[in-house]
């Protein structure tokens, strides 16, 4: 389809002063609205606090930890929690507290890297597939092939699939990251595709098309920004879920190897002790793990709340400035 269209001025570069003021007002409004959300829903605030604390503790771990996380002291094995060993010691005499606070360095890094990679790849492919699936020709055919491939990948049992991937690439941290990224891609692909299928029919997309914008420009400028909210909510929940998967892989011995401080392998190492009554080597890392995942789930729930206009309206105290509503 070739049409000669008048050149349209594209917004770009430095926004004019009026627009910049509007942007400032929008940011201010969003911030006020966010604070209101946290005030009315303390659980969401708790989620942000949990993740902030876990992150800070992980970063500061070398300063906080009273003992080395990987040095065993056989003279103090399986000590119950006490003042010198807050969470006790494990069967080899390593300090459980020090290991628990060092662990998020590995667990969070793996989970965040894996999830980000899968989100970037998954949403890009998903946007492409959603944009072209209902057209005709080669690109539509390719889109359908991609969707069937996603069906096949999702029919695999996730955990066995992830272990097999780690086995293929050799047991290392980067293999775990890759395995997590790979099993998560179909989730983002589907999510983005369903969003894009809806947005594609919007008038403003048609208008942009009629104005002669390229497909790539429309996807970048109109489709992706409008489809991002559910992806962000999913991202947060998914990081938590990936922490669980990392821990699970390490629990069966297919992820991070001991003595590297990692929650899943710590739980596995403490397993025989739990049977005989020494609960602390397994319980504390599990608590930290559950709390972290819970924090990410809460953040995800809060993003979902913010992205839903109907529930947004329930925050009645926030006066919506007219300048911020339009667009």
């Amino acid at each position, binding site marked *: 389809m070739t049409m000669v269209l008048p050149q349209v001025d594209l917004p770009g570069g430095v926004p004019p002063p009026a627009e910049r003021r509007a942007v400032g007002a929008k940011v201010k409004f969003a911030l006020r609205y966010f604070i209101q959300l946290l005030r009315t829903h303390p*659980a969401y605030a708790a989620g942000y606090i949990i993740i902030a604390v876990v992150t800070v503790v992980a970063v500061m771990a070398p300063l906080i930890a009273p003992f080395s996380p990987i040095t065993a002291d056989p003279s103090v094995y399986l000590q119950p929690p006490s003042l010198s060993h807050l969470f006790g010691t494990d069967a080899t005499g390593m300090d459980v507290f020090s290991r628990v606070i060092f662990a998020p360095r590995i667990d969070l890094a793996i989970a965040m890297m894996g999830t980000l990679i899968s989100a970037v790849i998954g949403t890009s492919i998903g946007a492409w597939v959603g944009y072209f699936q209902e057209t005709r020709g080669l690109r539509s055919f390719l889109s359908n092939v991609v969707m*069937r*491939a996603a*069906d*096949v*990948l999702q*029919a*695999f*049992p*996730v*955990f*066995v*699939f992830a*272990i*097999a*991937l780690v*086995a*293929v690439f*050799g047991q290392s941290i980067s293999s775990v990251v890759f395995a997590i990224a790979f099993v998560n891609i179909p989730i983002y692909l589907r999510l983005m595709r369903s969003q894009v299928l809806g947005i594609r029919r919007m008038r403003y997309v048609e208008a942009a098309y009629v104005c002669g914008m390229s497909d790539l420009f429309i996807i970048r400028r109109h489709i992706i920004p409008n489809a991002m909210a559910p992806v962000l909510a999913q991202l947060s929940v998914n990081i*938590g*879920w990936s922490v*669980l998967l990392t*821990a*699970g892989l390490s*629990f*069966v*011995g*297919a992820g991070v190897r001991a003595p590297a401080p990692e929650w*899943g392998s710590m*739980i596995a190492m*403490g*397993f025989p002790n*739990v*049977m*005989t*009554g020494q*609960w602390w080597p*397994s*319980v504390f890392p*599990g608590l930290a*793990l*559950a*709390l972290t*995942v*819970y924090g990410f*789930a*809460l953040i995800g*729930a809060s993003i979902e709340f913010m992205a839903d206009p109907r529930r947004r309206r329930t925050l009645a105290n926030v006066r919506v400035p007219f300048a911020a509503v339009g667009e």
Partner: protein
Amino acid sequence: MGIARYVGGRLLFLVPQIIGIILVGFLLIKAVPGDPATLMLGPMATPESIAKLRGELGLDKPIPVQFFIYIDKLVHGDFGTSWQTTQPVLEDLKIRFPATLELVTYGLLTALLIGIPLGIVSAMRQRGFLGRLGDFYGLVAGALPDFWLALILIYVFYSLLSWVPSPIGRIDVMLVPPATITGFYTIDSLLEGDWTAFWSSVQHLILPVLTLGLINAGPILKMTQSTMERMLQADFCQYERLCGLPEELVMRHALRNSFPSVITIVSVLYGFLIGGAVLVEIVFSWGGAGQYAVQGVLNSDFNPVLGFVIFSALFSLVVYLIVDLIYLAIDPRIRH
């Protein structure tokens, strides 16, 4: 007639999907470093005997040929042999798959018993204590690592209280497992009238089933809650209220209309748990199919892995098919 045609169409659609699954699984496993022949014969084997075994296993042929040989064997019901158990994979799976299925089925039933009532109640009292409890439970259940919860339950109910026998296996080691009829120990022992075996298998089921139930009640609760809330806001419920129908009746109609989405989440969970219960299986040394596959990957024993993947994919697909038939039965809009 219409239904038979529908099912036939669906089954036809499954064939390419199954082949895709086998292909991906096969390629994945071929990509794993480690030569099965070397592993089977041990480090002392001579190069000649390794080459001979490779020839017998078909490992010296190109990958596409190996794939077609594998498919050809599959069609004849030959899933290969596991070198760890030295048994045909099909025989192993015949014992292990029902073990997983028994665990997962009871686990899901428990999850339904917890999730649906809590979901309904929290949808009725959105702002009250129970509503908040429902929200909280939904998020917490999703955050708990199942293998850790299993350990906690073992600690409390075995180490501290000694209410359950030692959490190893499906039945007391001193007892003879019942003859395989359905593969479910609880049902088989009842069919045989063996009460000790029945009681022992129930005792061994309690903790793993409770673990799976508590965790998977989360998504069921969330789904029940959100659908019920939507239904209670729907026009038909508002209208019934306006007409002065008793609240109980309105609730019952809302519940009836929430069933399809609850059934959907149950079917998704059912398919997922066949492989997803593997960590719980490992904690309780359950000897299920997931555990079998994980051990296979970790020891370069690949026939069990592929066998498991095919079994669980088939199972999920059958569950989805059954669910679609249930939709037909309960939703008159689809039938037309």
